[in-house]
């Protein structure tokens, strides 16, 4: 494995995880983020969804407070003296609410203490961001995106925005957890992504939605599109399902997650991969993570 330091010099990768079910998608994204971070990377995760629980809950963080910090930090340029975030990153003890000590604070010029929600995960780190973090810079507000796209500025605020975000976060991977639907924001996140992960459950409505999402991904020239079959009921042969889904959507199936009562109850607001890293389910998630990284 290459060291995280070396990797940081490389092009950061953006993957968006698209699911139709809401909470299960967020739970899966949290597990995915942990699996990648464990390999020694710094992974950013953005939860764009409106549903509860949000990604913060999985990492036992206070969403609203941290989001304000991030927004200020990323878009308004507020930060402490050292500009490099990694230089003074605070560490949250993962998953342990009793030990949510903020190790370091970013000092705003106004004198207000700011906490940077970075969670150490194995050899890597997870940078957790929620609804307050927008993929579109503050300067370009919703509705302006169309105008910016149409006008084709010499200096592209959208592109610069993403670059700023990634540069500020210093991440190797950025995962975007999107909510169900095909709003402009979601389509935009797909357009940004190097990898589009579509999660589908064995259900006619989701098959149809998957077909549409995959097609959008193709039109936006996403280099890699992966499917993840979730909640496969017992009694199905995963090899058959793998083949069949791959054939139907003409898209690579990165993994199949069987339905399991244990996991459903265990993942309430915690990350299963963390509790049971050797469980077959966790191993499957890790395998999906590797395919996103490949």
């Amino acid at each position, binding site marked *: 494995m290459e060291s995280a330091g070396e990797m940081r*010099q490389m*092009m*950061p990768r*953006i993957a968006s995880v698209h699911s139709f079910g809401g909470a299960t998608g967020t739970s899966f994204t949290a597990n995915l983020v942990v699996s990648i971070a464990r390999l020694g990377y710094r992974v950013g995760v953005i939860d764009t969804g409106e549903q509860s629980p949000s990604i913060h809950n999985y990492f036992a963080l206070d969403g609203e407070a941290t989001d304000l910090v991030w927004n200020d930090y990323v878009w308004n340029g507020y930060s402490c003296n050292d*500009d490099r975030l990694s230089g003074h990153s605070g560490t949250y003890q993962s998953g342990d609410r009793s030990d949510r000590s903020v190790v370091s604070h970013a000092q705003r010029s106004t004198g207000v203490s700011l906490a940077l929600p970075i969670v150490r995960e194995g050899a890597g780190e997870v940078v957790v961001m929620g609804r307050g973090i927008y993929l579109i810079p503050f300067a370009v507000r919703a509705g302006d*995106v*169309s105008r910016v*796209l*149409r006008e084709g500025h010499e200096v*592209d605020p*959208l*592109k*610069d925005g*993403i*670059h*700023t975000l*990634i*540069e500020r976060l210093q991440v190797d991977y950025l995962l975007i957890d999107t909510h169900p639907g*095909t709003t*402009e924001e979601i*389509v*935009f996140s797909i*357009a*940004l*992504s*190097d990898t589009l992960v579509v999660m589908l459950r*064995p259900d*006619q409505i989701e*098959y*149809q939605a998957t*077909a*549409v999402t995959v*097609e*959008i991904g193709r*039109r*936006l*020239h*996403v*280099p890699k599109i992966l499917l993840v079959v979730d909640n496969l009921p017992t*009694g*199905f*042969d995963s090899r*058959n*399902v793998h083949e*069949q*889904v791959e054939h*139907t959507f003409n898209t690579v199936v990165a993994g199949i997650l069987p339905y399991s009562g244990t996991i459903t109850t265990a993942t309430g607001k915690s990350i299963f991969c963390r509790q049971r890293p050797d469980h077959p389910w966790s191993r499957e998630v890790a395998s999906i993570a590797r395919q996103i990284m490949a």
Partner: protein
Amino acid sequence: MVVGVILYAGLSWLTNIFPLATGVGVDIRPGVAVPIFFGFAFGPIAGFVSGMFGNFLGDVASGYIAYPPDPTTGKLLTDVLRGFQVNWELGNGLIGLIPGLAALAYRRYFSVRDQLRALLFTVVGIAVGIGFAALTDILIDPGMTLQKTITESFVPATGVDVANAVILVPILLFNYARLDLRSGNWLRSGLMRRLCVAILISAALPVALLGLFLTQQETGSHIGAVDLTVRLGLTILATLMLAVANAALVGASISRPLLRLTRAAQLMEAGQYSRTQASELKAVDTGDEIGRLSRLFGRMAEEVIQREESLRRQVQELRIEIDHSKKAREVAEITGTEYFENLQRKARELRTRSNLASETPV
């Protein structure tokens, strides 16, 4: 019925000719159990006939029938009755008839209660049968008195018969109740053959050893009492060990394949039985019923596993149907906008982050 007659006659004759352990006070007369058993098992007629004619044939064979009787009375009827011991034949018939009558009302011999009930009828039958014969002796035998017939005939004969019947009838009924005689194959049973051989060996061994021991005693009779006791003890010990070893071997040979079969059934129930295990079981060939059952079970398990697999293959196909025209409509709705067209144009550019560090001033 004929079987009963022959059995009773044969056993009576045998025990009459070769008296076992005479002088102990109780004759060994296992034959008496035959009519009683036939009565319980096959009804009053079978019991009566096997008792009556079995006894008659046995007496004839043993030379107990003497006609004309000694002394003769001159009255033809009395002489015939007495010479052919008709009252005794009838009495023996009653011994079988009474259990037979009881069996008409109730013919189950599974529980201890059933067995005790049967024993009661056995004792009543014997008492009535012998009583009838002993009392009628007074009428046909001029030298017979009531007291004499009770003390010399009724009491000892009843005692002997009851003693024998009490030992044998429950065993016979116990096995009969669990025996499925209707199955035509039971005579060819491999398990029965094995058990018979094992039990015969177990029975023959101590007899042979003791016999040898006894003959030695006869010939070389100058051994001390202590030595004698030690030898006898050793003989008994050796016999016991052989019998136990034999029983253990037979027991294991029956229980092991049964345990394996039970385990297989448990696994099958849990859905963990593999096809290789099934084919292993199918190959079992011990030549008895358990082996046959194992083979059958293995074959059945294989069939079931195969059927389950093919069923699973059918069920496990997902049904994925995509409405392509609907999909095209939905895609067009999204891609048809100016926003999307612009985004599409820019998408590749947005992803280009290779020279990020140098491009973006911090």
